[in-house]
């Protein structure tokens, strides 16, 4: 494969950044959910 270093770097940065951002959102969501009653979490009151 030509340019393997660039290809792997590009994909690693892309998917890695998205994974880290997703993980940070899950952590923030968990911490905040503990502070808010479930009846004030819109997605807990429907099947969506």
């Amino acid at each position: 494969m030509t340019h393997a270093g660039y290809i792997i770097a590009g994909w690693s940065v892309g998917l890695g950044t998205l994974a880290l951002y997703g993980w940070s959102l899950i952590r923030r969501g968990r911490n905040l959910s503990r502070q808010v009653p479930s009846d004030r979490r819109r997605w807990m009151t429907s099947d969506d």
Partner: protein
Amino acid sequence: MSATAPAESAVENTGSRSTRVLGAIIAVGTPLLLLLAFVWSPEDDVMQDAVRLLYIHVPVAILTYVAFSLTAVGSVAYLWKGSRWWDTVAHSAAEVGVVFCGLTLVTGSIWGRPTWNTWWEWGDVRLVTTLVLFLVYVGYLAFRRVPADPGVRARRAAIIGIIGALQIPIVRYSVQWWENSTLHQQGSLTDGKLENLTLFTWFIGQVVLGAIFLWLLVHRFRVAWLEDEIDTHGLVDALEERRAEAMVGVDEAVGGPVDGRIPSDGGQS
């Protein structure tokens, strides 16, 4: 230990059935995309294997336009209806859009080095307009963190969100309007020059990264909603909690409930 404890703790997050379905699509789609991008799709006659960066760079660039367009839609809807829901949509889409726009710049720079022999070209109108778009929405997010009246801040942020989105057509069509000032090619996905498997791989990349985008957007919306709930109701809840604690303390001190009622023994005990 209550039998319902696991169920109660399980709902303390921003997940739902829809995000779990999206997660399943992502879990299946990502390995498929990697196989297509790295193994099954052919190399390009000119770019050789560097074409494999197309399958991540182009989808994140398109999703950047989607995100900032959604910010503009949410901003217009907020100014029109004054709905907190739309303001939260605009805010969430802007943050996800900044992440995708940053990735567009970084993956494009990495792709540019083997293709154009440069990491960055200040004379390229597509690169510079994309950088300006990125900086405007970083400014939008910074503005949203400035302490101010929430209504005033939301209205001003909406104006920035709308003005920022006016750049999207400029970025999109810059390579046509200033075709002598760019290294980018025009319409490579639609001009029929790409092989079918290359187009199919790009399509799968668009679907998988689109699912990731949607998953991030839904979770970001819910985080913003929770933050707003805490800001709005946090003080009231804290006051009620302190009041309840104080009442319990008084109850214990006088040996009975302090709610205005006379104890059944006439208060003699």
